[in-house]
């Protein structure tokens, strides 16, 4: 039972991390390698909030706002100039991630910090006691995914975004503010990164290289996702499950290597990602 819950919560955590990444990739065709950097900004914002004695959940909100502001700055200064050179966005965001890590090191030093332990109780799930906080993460992940699905399917925002994806020149011709929407998308992606960063704060060691251990899995999951939300969930489920199960039955240290291997093989078989229907 604990194993099942471990798998479930790992999938949930991965989903929360990957969501912002997937939005940015899906709409803007940008792989945001600075995603973990923005998670770092988020978690350190939460650290500051925590050290001022603010409640944890307020810290999470502050984290999302801080990452969003940083995202806006990055979009305006850098990303905006690179939309027609997608391969170079990879390099630029990689450089930005380096800058963010260095800035955090300068501001906070190398020592580990903390954001506090919210909901530090255990909940009994079918007789198995399990960390309440990790269970809440799964619920948050589910809410985010369902919310995003509804947003894409049923609102004007979803329609407009799909228009930009399909043909940005035409969209611009139809009076859609393409550059505004792109900036908003990037900012939302970063806000989600900050949000995810703060949420994972209680489960990870917080230092300037925050979330680096997640980086490989997250980027592979988003590539596995293809251009569809179902693929995203499926990708997270597969990689999350592989990671936990392998760690349990074989060796935790090798599990990250195995996850990379599984993802690479899957991507060889499905180069366009996992989606329910064939494009």
């Amino acid at each position, binding site marked *: 039972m604990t194993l099942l819950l471990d798998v479930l919560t790992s999938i949930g955590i991965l989903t929360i991390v990957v969501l912002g990444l997937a939005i940015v990739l899906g709409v803007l065709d940008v*792989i945001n*390698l600075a995603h973990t950097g923005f998670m770092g900004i988020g978690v350190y914002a939460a650290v500051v909030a925590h050290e001022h004695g603010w409640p944890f959940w307020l810290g999470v909100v502050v984290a999302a706002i801080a990452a969003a502001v940083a995202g806006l700055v990055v979009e305006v200064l*850098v990303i905006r*100039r*690179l939309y027609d*050179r*997608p*391969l*170079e966005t*990879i*390099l*630029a965001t*990689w*450089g*930005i991630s*380096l*800058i963010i890590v*260095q*800035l955090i*090191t*300068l501001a906070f030093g190398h020592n580990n910090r903390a954001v506090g332990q919210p909901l530090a109780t255990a909940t009994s799930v079918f007789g198995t006691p399990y960390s309440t906080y990790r269970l809440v993460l799964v619920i948050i992940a589910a809410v985010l995914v369902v919310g995003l699905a509804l947003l894409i399917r049923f609102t004007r925002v979803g329609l407009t975004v799909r228009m930009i994806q399909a043909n940005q020149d035409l969209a611009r011709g139809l009076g859609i503010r393409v550059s505004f929407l792109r900036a908003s998308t990037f900012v939302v992606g970063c806000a989600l990164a900050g949000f995810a960063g703060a949420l994972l704060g209680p489960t990870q060691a917080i230092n300037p290289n925050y979330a*680096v*251990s997640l*980086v*490989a*899995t997250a*980027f*592979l999951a988003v*590539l596995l996702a293809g251009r569809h939300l179902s693929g995203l969930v499926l990708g997270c489920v597969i990689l999350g499950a592989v990671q936990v199960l392998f760690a349990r039955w074989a060796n935790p*240290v*090798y599990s*990250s*290597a195995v996850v*990379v291997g599984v*993802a*690479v*093989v899957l*991507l*060889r078989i499905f*180069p*366009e990602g996992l989606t329910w*229907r*064939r*494009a």
Partner: protein
Amino acid sequence: MASRLTLRRGRFGTVGLVVAGFAVFGVVGTDYNTGLLTTAFVYAIAAVSLDLVWGYVGAPDLGHALWFGIGALSVGAMTTVTDKTGLVIDVHDSSWRYVVGIILGMIVSAALAGIVGRFSFSARGSAFYIAVVTLALTTVATTLYSQFPKITGGDNGLFGFGPANVTPRTWYYVALAALTLVVIGAVVLVRSDLGLLLKAVRDNETRTRYLGYDVERIKTVTFMGGAAIAAFAGGLMAVIYGLVSSDLFSFVFATQMLVWVAVGGRGTIIGPVIGAIVLQLVGAHLSAQFPTQWNLVEGVLFVLVVVFVPDGVLPFVTRQIGRLATSLHTRRGDMASREPQGVGGRRITPDPAGAPQRPTTSPVIAVSDLHFGYGSLQVLRGVDLQVNRGELLCIVGPNGAGKSTLVSVLADGNMRIDGEIRYELGSHTSHRRRPPHRIARYGVSRKFQSPQLFESLSAAETILLARLGGKLPSFWRRSEVVPVSPAVVDVLDATGLHGRDNERGTTLAHGLKQGLEIAAAVASRPQVLLLDEPTAGLTLNERAVIGKVLRRLVGNGMTVILIEHDLDFVNQIADRVVVLHGGRIIQDGTPDEVSSSQVVREAYLGTVS
């Protein structure tokens, strides 16, 4: 030509001068500075290896430090004895172990890179993919490093080895010599005919594929080569300093390599060398005082370069100097120097030996009951078609009839079809579906609807690659002349490309681009030529000339399949016309039969459904 040759000699002369300068510095420089330079030389080798992978075949390897690290580790593991916890307790002193260590590291790196490339380079996959995989491998490598202390020394790394009795100055010269060899080798390679192919892959993978080249294999092999050279640098580093740790595998180091290459100028070989040496020297001086700030500066520099001077500082500076020089010349009234600057310096010459093929009447391609659709959209719904050797077949039909799709399916065996396409191409008589480059090599050449040319290749270079038709070009020889068959000369003359051998394909006017595309397709000496609207955007006159050229090709035994909208043009040149409508062939006959057909008229006017 003469000026070109002197230029080449001049360039190697400059390299010689710089090397001599560094050699002298080895005598007069301080220990501190020669020490720094020794490291910088080794790093520069790594930068060259990354430039080959990233700057030439366009694969951004974000984890290039991995290969460097493997090379270093191989030397360390070969020459030390560790206890169970990974602490070095003894060092072998036989010098052959260092040589074996370097070679072993190169082999392991190349092999691993081969596996990674095999899995990562795919025609359908995302271009981001290799970046993410290499990044992921870096995280895995640093994790695994601490898990095998017996081999790697674990968290302490391996240390204390290295050949005895070698002075730092000797290492300085060894590193300088190694760098010089690597740079000369790399420059020869990228200036050779194979270098052209690498640039072609970087500029336009699809087009390269349809010229008959196995793009994935070229990328994988280059990736392996880059990994091996990086491992060589890593091995050299380990031999010189007698030190290996997981830092050599890390993100930070890999990113530094990216910075050297990006700032120096990717795709130039010399640029990354300068980038590595300069940044290493500056970095060493600054990071002594501001360790964290220096990394920050590097990051900012990297982002600035990527955004504002994406091809790097060296090409930017050369361009500015060139512009300044031209403006000075113009002021002096020297108009001759204002000719458009050519690239490549290769010349097209006629090759009368291009023998015509024997005309026959057997089929070359037989299509039966062909169905194809994109998702739920069914485009081809049961096409039956026999194409005979030596005929000029025109495919006409309203927009959306499936003409281009039909041609694509003939040229790309990766598209999944129902039904059968049988090729009778002599060397390839089969209905097996093959990837595009194989079909191209069997003798089916394709011209795309819109011109697809190579950003950095001249007209002559494009034709050179087409002419090789998938055969691997020489990796050291540089063809100065491109012999072409009379048919190609015809196309070049007809479309006004004559004498424009050294102009970049992408800067030509639209009509000339079309001409170059046709010339390239013809130059590959195909049995079957697939042309998707070759005359779109051409004047009436140019069209007539192209028509004549095509007739002559057919007269020499080539089979031409042509998609065309202009029915008058079709009537003039076609042997046979096929009308495609709604994914089916509704008429098949001589031009006269087709143009008088009621069915066809209705198809174009929209009454047939």
